[in-house]
């Protein structure tokens, strides 16, 4: 089979969709966090922590649902820590995010070693088995992670626009002083928003781990940062963020195929998603109007 045949195949499309999920969940988490005014570069660390939690809990309980919940809860907890540091402790969000990424990068390795005595990967877990009897299309379209990611995206978009919490969340992100002046509890709103964002991102971490059926040290490979780029490219809007993630995931899937199908050194293709991210950001950052960053990002109420 030539490389081109593989690229246009249904398998490749299904692969792309599945690979989108960690990106999409992380970027939806980023949207929630940043629309409330808290920069979240800790997405990478959240993905790692939740992936490990999902694998560890499924390993112990044997339940995919318990593993999934563990991933979500782990993500929420890291989000809560980030929010507490930034909102209550007034730590700079970049510093806090960087610290969390470093701590969780090392921490997950440490736990991996402590639990399984390995510095590279966990024993394999079952993950989520679904749709064995179904065709490729149905299996992909009805995948629980795909469906839940779509549901979360829809909920984010609708919630931000149409609910009281969404309105207040956006107000905190656009102008925290104004929000506070009308009686919105900015600190609480941001705590909830960033924690929710962490939970959504945690869903992505669990999906990533179950896709590979194990935890590997550093398995996120920069997905959290690419998701953050997707947030920016998408102008901090949920659906466009999912779209941007789909594009990045397609490149990711493509580079895997090209690595396997051609004789060109693998590293050259491995940088594809990152180069694309760079280009997309370069183009988007020149865009002057429309879909800009929330104006109150990184600001505290007066």
């Amino acid at each position, binding site marked *: 089979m030539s490389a081109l045949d593989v690229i246009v195949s249904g398998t490749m499309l299904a692969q792309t969709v599945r690979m989108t999920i960690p990106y999409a969940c992380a970027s939806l988490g980023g949207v929630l966090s940043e629309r409330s005014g808290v920069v979240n570069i800790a997405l990478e660390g959240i993905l790692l922590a939740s992936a490990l939690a999902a694998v560890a809990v499924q390993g112990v309980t044997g339940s995919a649902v318990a593993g999934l919940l563990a991933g979500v809860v782990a993500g929420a907890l890291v989000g809560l820590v980030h929010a507490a540091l930034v909102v209550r402790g007034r730590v700079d969000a970049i510093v806090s995010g960087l610290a969390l990424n470093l701590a969780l990068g090392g921490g997950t390795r440490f736990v991996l070693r402590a639990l399984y005595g390995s510095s590279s990967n966990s024993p394999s877990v079952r993950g989520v088995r679904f749709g064995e009897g179904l065709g490729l299309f149905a299996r992909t379209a009805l995948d629980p992670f795909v469906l839940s990611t779509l549901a979360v995206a829809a909920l984010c978009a609708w919630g931000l626009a*149409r*609910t*009281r*919490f969404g*309105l*207040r969340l*956006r*107000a905190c992100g*656009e*102008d925290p*002083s*104004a*929000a*506070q*002046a*009308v*009686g*919105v*509890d900015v600190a609480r709103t941001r705590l909830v928003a960033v924690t929710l964002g962490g939970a959504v991102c945690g869903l992505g971490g669990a999906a990533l781990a179950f896709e590979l059926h194990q935890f590997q040290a550093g398995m996120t490979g920069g997905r959290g940062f690419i998701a953050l780029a997707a947030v920016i490219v998408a102008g901090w809007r949920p659906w466009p963020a999912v779209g941007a993630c789909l594009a990045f995931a397609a490149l990711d899937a493509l580079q895997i195929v090209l690595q396997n199908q051609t004789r060109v050194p693998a590293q050259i293709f491995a940088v594809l998603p990152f180069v694309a991210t760079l280009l997309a950001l370069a183009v988007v950052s020149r865009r002057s109007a429309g879909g800009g960053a*929330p*104006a109150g990002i990184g600001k505290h109420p007066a």
Partner: protein
Amino acid sequence: MLLRIIQNPARIALCYAPVAIAGAPKGEETEVELARTRAVSKRFGAVEAVRRVSCVFRSAEIHAVCGENGAGKSTLLKLVAGMTGPDAGEIVVGGRPLDPHTPREAIRRGVAMVLQHFALVPAFTVLENIVLGSEPVGPFGVLDRGVARARAAAIARDLGVKLPLDARVEALGVGDRQRTEIARALFRDARLVILDEPTAVLTKAEALALYVTLRRLADGGKGIVVVTHKLDEVRAHADVVSVMRRGELVFTRPLDRTAGLDGQIEEVTAAIMGGAGRLRAAGDGGGSAADARSPRGAGAGEAGEAGVAGEDGVAGEDGAAGEEAAGEAVLVVTGVDAGGVLADVSLSLRAGEIVGIAGVEGNGQKELVELLAGDIAPARGTLVVGRTAIIREDRQSEGLVLDASLRDNLVLGELGRFARRGMLDLVALESEARKRLERSGAVRGPHGASASGSPPASGSPPASGGALDLDRPARTLSGGNQQKIVVARALARNADVVVAAQPTRGVDLAASLDIHADLVAAAKRGAGVLVISADLDELRKLASRIVVLARGRIVGEVPPTASDDALGRLMLGIAARADASDASAADGTRPRGAPP
């Protein structure tokens, strides 16, 4: 300035009509106490912003709170609105002490504040801003947009205004933003609406419309508190006047509209001015501090009157100075089109002369400043100009780096002067900044009073006394003092042309007088001064001739003695020049709420 406003019968009749009718039948029995402070104090660092103030705010009245910049009036009302907590004393809202001291609690008890710098979310629509914080919701916190819209529309109707509910606030002018703020206060059933300097950013027509709205609310039983330093507004619209000076409440009394107002307003002026606080560089030490503590002492009254007389004296001098001057031209604009707004503008300015530019806002003033500042180039025509110093309209975003020190702000843009081979001469910079700060008269706050009393000796010791603190961030100064810094910096350049755009907007009376004196001094020194202002009285006082700008064109030039009516006609472009080609452009520049 003041007296002239008061003596204009036409305007008073206009302002007065609703007051006279509506204000009279309000008896004591209909007025309910909505909020009161009891010996409340608040300090910021070394400055006691509010000191043991007890004040009552009632329903169905317009209560004006006056005072100079930094007198503590905004702080007092922020305390009432729960935006900051007191250090001592008690704030009673709705019959109980306010606790906790949060805006949310104050709003819950019916107190809402409209801040000077509006607390609206720019990216939100008007409707979103109105409902934010007290959203009507259905199950699961889902916004009930139908109810929100219906209530907002009803409030706009009650206010007698049109509100573009679906427009984003960032696209609106200040008048609409303010109406949005007021609508928001009413949306949450506020019974006491506090407005901080509400007319500082409005044109006269808009200000008048605002007071009509406020009177409507007061007649409907709302309590209205207006923080202002415009005494003509106090005179025309207030039912009760309170005066703050140096953190203390020195005067609070209803205005008796059946008796002569002149005397009452003079008392208010006297209370605002206090003792000898007016005279720059002259000592305002112990004596005035004592005055401040005796509520409306007899001595204060006298000093105030003297102050008013002095003010007129200055005005007289200015006029004379303007007429005598006949230096060479320092600015010649010939047939310039620029910025898509200015059309065929011709203007000349001579050394030693002060020329005023009048016009309804948005008729090319901004572009004229940009043209003279070199921000935009003329598309047509010629511009010959000497060295120019600009005092920008928006001091907070264009005039100052708010978080930088006063030192840095005072020499901003002139670092070249202090650089030697790429190294800054910090000693020279420090001494120049100090000189400018002293000359600006900006840092004479409550704790600086004694230090600035004596004229600064050369080689005075470094600011260990803390009076002239060059390290202080510009943000910590009040608006008037910030403006003094901007003016001092602009004038220190000894430019040939000084362009002052709205130099005293949002600035208290005393600071305004100082700034006017500075501009007059610059003209005496030989600079040509161009004052662009929405305040006709300011232009009349300073300028030897007034040029009127309407729809980007110069539509006339009048002497400062021209009547309000004549100027108003020119400003609205009613006189002659409304040709058909201008009609489309006019839509965008027409003043909102302008009287027919």
